[in-house]
């Protein structure tokens, strides 16, 4: 009788110890998007390396945080040197390092790229469990969903202003993508949702001016450092067609990866939509 509580206590302590032992201690992330999630969810001492792209502030929202963590360039050598016990990859993982990870039999966690806002929440939870940080994941997901809930509900489809995303070299993003989901949640109709547009289509400047959407969405904020692509965004035809009230800037880094920052993209577009005023109002 006296030994049972002791046995019970031993059993409980063993069970309680299991999750801590299973928590990976040397996580290597091979992909910009998995970098963001790993940096957000894992404790700093758990991270062995993230990709060097995570330090580029135009692409990565957590660039400062990434500066405090070792970075790799996607080579197999660096992966081996990092002594990873978990490798997290996305769709665009560095091929060389991934092959080495599989060859050495390292645990590899593959994350897909959600195209819906709900999918983002699910992925956060899944990764949180794998990293041994379910509490952090729950908190991150809760704040993500709260940001979205705090926004005004989108108007019904007939009242939604028409918006177009104009990227470098005249590309636009169409249906079935994360950008499209963001547009919908922000209450905008996507110009690229045409009969014959693919998920990623070419939108000639002439056509953009001709179809005259209510809102032009661009991804670049400034002209530094200069590029022809950025110069295109200041083309006189665009400036004449879309005054400041009809332009919105959503920096690439907010939606290039399906992560919690996407909520910030939705917020920006909602603000732009509200600034437009009535759908058939002042142009």
């Amino acid at each position, binding site marked *: 009788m006296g030994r049972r509580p002791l046995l019970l206590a031993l059993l409980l302590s063993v069970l309680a110890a299991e999750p801590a032992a299973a928590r990976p201690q040397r996580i290597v992330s091979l992909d910009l998007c998995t970098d963001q999630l790993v940096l957000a969810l894992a404790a700093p001492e758990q991270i062995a390396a993230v990709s060097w792209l995570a330090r580029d502030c135009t692409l990565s929202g957590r660039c400062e945080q990434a500066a405090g963590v070792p970075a790799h360039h996607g080579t197999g050598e660096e992966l081996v040197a990092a002594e990873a016990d978990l490798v997290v990859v996305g769709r665009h993982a560095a091929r060389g390092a991934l092959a080495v990870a599989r060859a050495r039999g390292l645990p590899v966690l593959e994350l897909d790229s959600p195209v819906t806002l709900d999918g983002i929440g699910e992925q956060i939870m899944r990764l949180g469990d794998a990293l041994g940080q379910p509490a952090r994941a729950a908190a991150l997901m809760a704040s993500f969903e709260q940001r979205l809930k705090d926004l005004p509900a989108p108007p019904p489809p007939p009242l939604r202003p028409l918006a177009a995303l104009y990227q470098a070299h005249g590309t636009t993003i169409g249906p079935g993508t994360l950008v499209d989901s963001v547009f919908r949640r922000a209450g905008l109709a996507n110009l690229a949702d045409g009969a014959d547009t693919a998920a990623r289509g070419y939108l000639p400047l002439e056509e953009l*001016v001709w179809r005259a959407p209510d809102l032009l969405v661009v991804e670049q904020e400034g002209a530094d450092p200069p590029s022809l692509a950025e110069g295109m965004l200041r083309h006189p035809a665009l400036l004449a067609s879309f005054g400041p009230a009809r332009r919105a800037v959503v920096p690439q880094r907010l939606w290039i990866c399906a992560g919690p920052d996407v909520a910030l993209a939705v917020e920006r577009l909602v603000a732009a939509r509200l600034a437009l005023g009535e759908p058939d109002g002042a142009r």
Partner: protein
Amino acid sequence: MAPAERRRDRLLLALLAGTVLLLLLASAATGRVSLPLLPALGEIAAGRTTPASIILLELRVPRALLGALVGASLGLAGAAMQGLLRNPLAEPGVVGVSGLAAFGAVVAFYTGLAARFTYALPLGGIAGAFAAVALLYALAGRRGGLLSLVLAGMALNSMAGALTALALNLSPNPYASFEIVFWLMGSLADRSLDMVALAAPPMLLGWLLLARTGSALDALSLGEDAARSLGFDLPRVRLRIIMATALAVGAAVAVTGVIGFVGLVVPHLLRPLVGYRPGRLLLPSALGGAVLVLASDIAIRLLATGPELKLGVLTALLGAPFFFWLVVSLRREEA
């Protein structure tokens, strides 16, 4: 010049000029969108801003104008270079003048210089073009066979291409290394009136400088001693032609990238029509160059389903076979 010759010349010029005007109109009428042209013109005249007026004024007119200006500059430069270097294979694209001009423009643009000082862009192109023409003249201008110029040009082109790629790769902007396609393959797409205003003055200045060199080029075709004995100040003539070529080609490349072979094909096609006299070839080459570039640009837009083909690709597809044929026939002549 005999009256018959003068009449023939005038007829040729009139035909070419008329074709240029027709192609300018055709270019303004060609594009992705079926634009109602007359209503758009009416809106521009009335000062109203509508999608149609914006497309016509800010997209199509600059494209057509630039096509004519750049084509004329390239054709003229080709004829002038062939006269100066006494080499039928001389052409800004082939011998690396356009390539080095592109490098100059790339440096001016991607270092942010052009953002602070707008004229830095054409000046960069002009500096590159000047360096190239001067270098070529020093390497293969005076003596050497026909092909030594082409070899020097190939070397210069390779170097210019590598330097341009290097400059773009070093730029911190992630788009820069993709933009090499624009600089090396050339395009008139989505150019603006600002770019026309930027490039036109140096180009026109180059044309003006070249306009009076016709008789000097005629004399040079008789040989340097003959030209000197006829009273031409050869160093001054050479410098004038080099500067003019640099101005015209440098400014053109700075806003459109490298468009090759125009200055090769056009003078060759027109040379028999002007009695093989270099001086009489200048103006027809300018007009012919405008015709070729405008026609190619219209063809690109008519053929486009997705993103357009780059203009330099089309002129290369037309010009490279022509170039091969020229080389072969010249070697046969030499042998």
